[in-house]
């Protein structure tokens, strides 16, 4: 528990330093995806389910936020809870259908439902702007400044991470891991395995939708890519490359992902290829992610210190 407190402290310090070294919008984007990746890790790392459809919730959150601003000029205190509530419902329905099947089918179902919502967003052009995206999502007056917006995002991200940490450490959250490690035993001890999986899915969906709602404000547009299944792949990528075995691992993954996409896309517009290559290498040789590398380095240094 104490270690977690240090980790949060470190994270808070990094969040304060970040806008000094990065453009505030990039730092904000990193933190938004940190929420998404940590949320995804509740399903992947804690519950042991691979969802290939997290962009559904990210996108729906973004569209809700975008539409409420464009059409009604709604205030944030109304938008963000609406986005969360809608995604709880949506994740409840999709999750209910997906947990009917286990393993590979679960993955394929989350993926297919993602595509369904993408097509709705893509073809319903009068509502979403279709392929061109939904422009004109203006931030409220007090968040116009990028640094102000970043501060807002940083506070929200830290709160979200703390909440998620609280959830996975709660007795119910412990059941996620029980289901991951041995679903039969969890069932035999009287737990409803499907319900546990479903709650894990809904928790992740809610936070992902929340992050999506904030994302719409970032660049003032909701691109249709926000809900495309490749975005779901990106989310899995961030989670794994950071390290799914650690609560904070996906945060590192989000930093790495946004950094990689921002740097490489500057000089090569076929950057998804680099992404694919890095991802393939990680899957082949480094399944613990960056966290594992750090742990190995720390191990070597400790041994050297002990020897010296």
């Amino acid at each position: 528990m104490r270690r977690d407190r240090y980790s949060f402290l470190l994270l808070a310090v990094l969040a304060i330093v970040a806008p000094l070294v990065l453009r505030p919008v990039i730092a904000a984007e990193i933190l938004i995806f940190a929420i998404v990746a940590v949320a995804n890790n509740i399903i992947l790392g804690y519950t042991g389910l691979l969802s290939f459809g997290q962009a559904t919730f990210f996108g729906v959150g973004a569209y809700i936020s975008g539409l409420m601003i464009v059409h009604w000029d709604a205030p944030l205190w109304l938008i963000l809870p609406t986005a969360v509530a809608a995604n709880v419902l949506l994740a409840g329905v999709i999750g209910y259908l997906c947990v009917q099947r286990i393993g590979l089918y679960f993955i394929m179902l989350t993926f297919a439902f993602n595509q369904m919502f993408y097509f709705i967003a893509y073809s319903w052009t009068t509502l979403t702007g279709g392929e061109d995206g939904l422009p004109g999502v203006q931030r409220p007056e007090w968040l116009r400044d990028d640094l102000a917006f970043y501060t807002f995002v940083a506070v929200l991200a830290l709160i979200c991470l703390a909440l998620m940490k609280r959830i996975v450490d709660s007795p119910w959250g412990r059941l996620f891991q029980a289901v991951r490690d041995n679903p039969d035993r969890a069932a035999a001890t009287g737990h409803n395995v499907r319900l546990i999986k479903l709650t894990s899915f809904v928790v992740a969906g809610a936070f992902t939708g929340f992050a999506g709602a904030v994302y719409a404000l970032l660049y003032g547009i909701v691109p249709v890519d926000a809900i495309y299944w490749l975005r779901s792949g990106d989310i899995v990528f961030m989670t794994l490359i950071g390290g799914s075995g650690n609560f904070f691992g996906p945060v590192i993954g989000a930093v790495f992902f946004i950094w990689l996409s921002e740097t490489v896309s500057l000089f090569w517009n076929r950057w998804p290829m680099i992404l694919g290559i890095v991802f393939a290498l990680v899957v082949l040789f480094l399944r613990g992610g960056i966290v594992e590398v750090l742990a190995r380095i720390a191990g070597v240094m400790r041994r050297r210190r002990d020897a010296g």
Partner: protein
Amino acid sequence: MTFLIVSQIINGVVTGMLYALMGVGLTLILGVLNIPNFAHGVLYAFGAYFMLAVTQLIGGFWLGVLIAPFGVVALGMLIEYFGVRQLYAAHHDYQLLFLFAVALILQEAIILIWGPVGTSILPPEHLAGAVNLGVTIYPKYRLAVMVITAAIVIALWLFLTRTNVGAIVRAGIENRGMVEVLGIDVQKVFLLTFGIGAWLAGIAGSLATPIMGLTPSMGFDILPITFVVVVIAGLGSVVGAILAGILIGLAQSLTTIWFPEAAQVVIYLLMGLTIILRPQGLFGKR
């Protein structure tokens, strides 16, 4: 109206047969190797682009249909041999993610090699134009595709049910562990199955070129549809995948008549309905 409905029904069967070829390949790989092949869509796209390469470099439509799928087989086998195989000891999620990464790389490769703009291939001259079916006139080429895909499906069925190798593949779907115990080199079966799946994706891609054209994203577009086919069909059911493919094709083309915007969405609704009413799929046992 009858004119429209009849031609849309035939359209549905034609695209449905292409979905069926994709679905059968995915089912075989899923059944034997226990991985949903995320690179299946991009193999389909390579079928189409290899076809383009052959028709441009050598010329001859049917030569393309003959050669291109084997290019895809080579590609598929390389992926299995150098990637998927290295990951059998790891959790199957990692094989899936590896294939996803491969799909990303290959899709970008298509853009690098052939450019981001789509193109198309004309059907061969002797199949250009339409034929009068009485109720409707219909493009000859599409009818030919229907016949060819049907022949492929029958040939595959004969292979799976009448040959020893086919029996091993089927046994691999039923019980992989038992196949290993019987002393069969399961690695070879995996490679072969991946090859067959790749060939089916390749031939679907090359036959689809005059109907659907070529775009770099064509693989990513068809992949989720293929997954829907397999989910509706049920695990390991080859016959189910064929019927589900046709069902999906029909649902799509008939929706186009009344509510074109929903044509892409309706197949996912069908999938949702299947999961509620029959979670194991229409033809699945488990």
